[in-house]
């Protein structure tokens, strides 16, 4: 139905696409460590050696873990398997709250202790009016 040239051009496009997808896939796969925005406490625990570089740790702020002493803020990031203690001095975003997502940027002291230089609140995918949240909470 279609001419030989049309078929060849189709094949040409398909080959370019396959090559590109494979290349991009391999590149992203090998760069995985750098593509992720933060690491979880479990991933930190599993590190073979501690990096001196600035890293980001993310997870949930553990319930009842926030301690404010003078200008220093202390809390615990958890992924419900492992935990890491964070200390921080500075401004915190409005959405920073116990039981909510957080990403802390800073330096590892050891596998259990993290000194943050910046705190970002991570919002989750749930959107609802306050009344609905309340109703859900009462259940």
């Amino acid at each position, binding site marked *: 139905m279609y001419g030989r040239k*049309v078929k060849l*051009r*189709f094949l040409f*496009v398909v080959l*370019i*696409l396959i090559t*590109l*997808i494979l290349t*991009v896939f391999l590149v*992203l796969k090998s760069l*995985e460590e750098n*593509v*992720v*925005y*933060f*690491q*979880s406490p479990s991933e930190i625990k599993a590190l073979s050696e501690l990096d001196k570089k600035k890293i980001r740790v*993310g997870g949930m702020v553990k319930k009842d873990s926030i301690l404010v002493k003078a200008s220093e803020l202390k809390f615990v990031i958890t992924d419900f398997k492992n935990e890491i203690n964070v200390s921080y001095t500075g*401004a*915190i*975003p*409005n*959405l*920073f709250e116990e039981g*909510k997502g957080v*990403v802390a940027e800073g330096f590892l002291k050891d596998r259990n202790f993290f000194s943050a230089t*910046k*705190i*970002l*609140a*991570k*919002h*989750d*995918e*749930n*959107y*609802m*009016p*306050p*009344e*609905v*949240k*309340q109703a859900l909470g009462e259940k």
Partner: protein
Amino acid sequence: MFKLLNPNKIFQVTSKAPKYILFLFVVVLSVGLTEALILSPEDYKQSDAVRIMYVHVPAAWISLGIFSSITFLSISGFIFKNKNFFLIAKSLAPSGFVFNIIALVTGAIWGKPTWGTWWAWDARITSMLILALFYAMYLISWRIYESEEKVFKITTFITILGIVNVPIIKYSVDWWNTLHQPASINILSKSSIHISMLFPLLIMTAAFALFSLLIFLMKYNTELIKIKNKGLDRL
């Protein structure tokens, strides 16, 4: 099939349709904005900042949709040697680019009060920036190259390179840890956005789609006039 599309008939549609589309756009946008800014509830966590989402999400959807469309059109135009496909793609691109920029800017405005930062080099945000760069390359190449042969090939190549990025944008939030939250709307499973917020979101999406259609018709009409002025009776 393509020969049935008589340019004169298309021209009749593209020169008259915009005023009706404009009217429809204004109506839908007014309803959408009233819903999004006044009637819809505030979020339990972000309070009024959630309203930015009614512009941000539709803009991002439309820019992804348009890029996919111009890729499909360019590849089809390249395979079947059909000039019309390229002209449709060319006319679609500007509104896709504008919505891409709107998505990035509104994302930054939302990010500052909620995350605490304007910009993060996470996978979702970076891949969206890359899409904007592909749009820019696509639009610029239409201006640089005079010869049709060349511009058709180069724009097709740019869209093929850029389309690989589109699934990365979509799945970046699932594949990697990102600061950006995962999708709230799932076709196959239950959505994690309340119906009172989903409704204005869908109306705003319809409004933006109508705006893209409007700009497309006006741009495409100009392309048809250019062809007419050349005295050619076919596409």
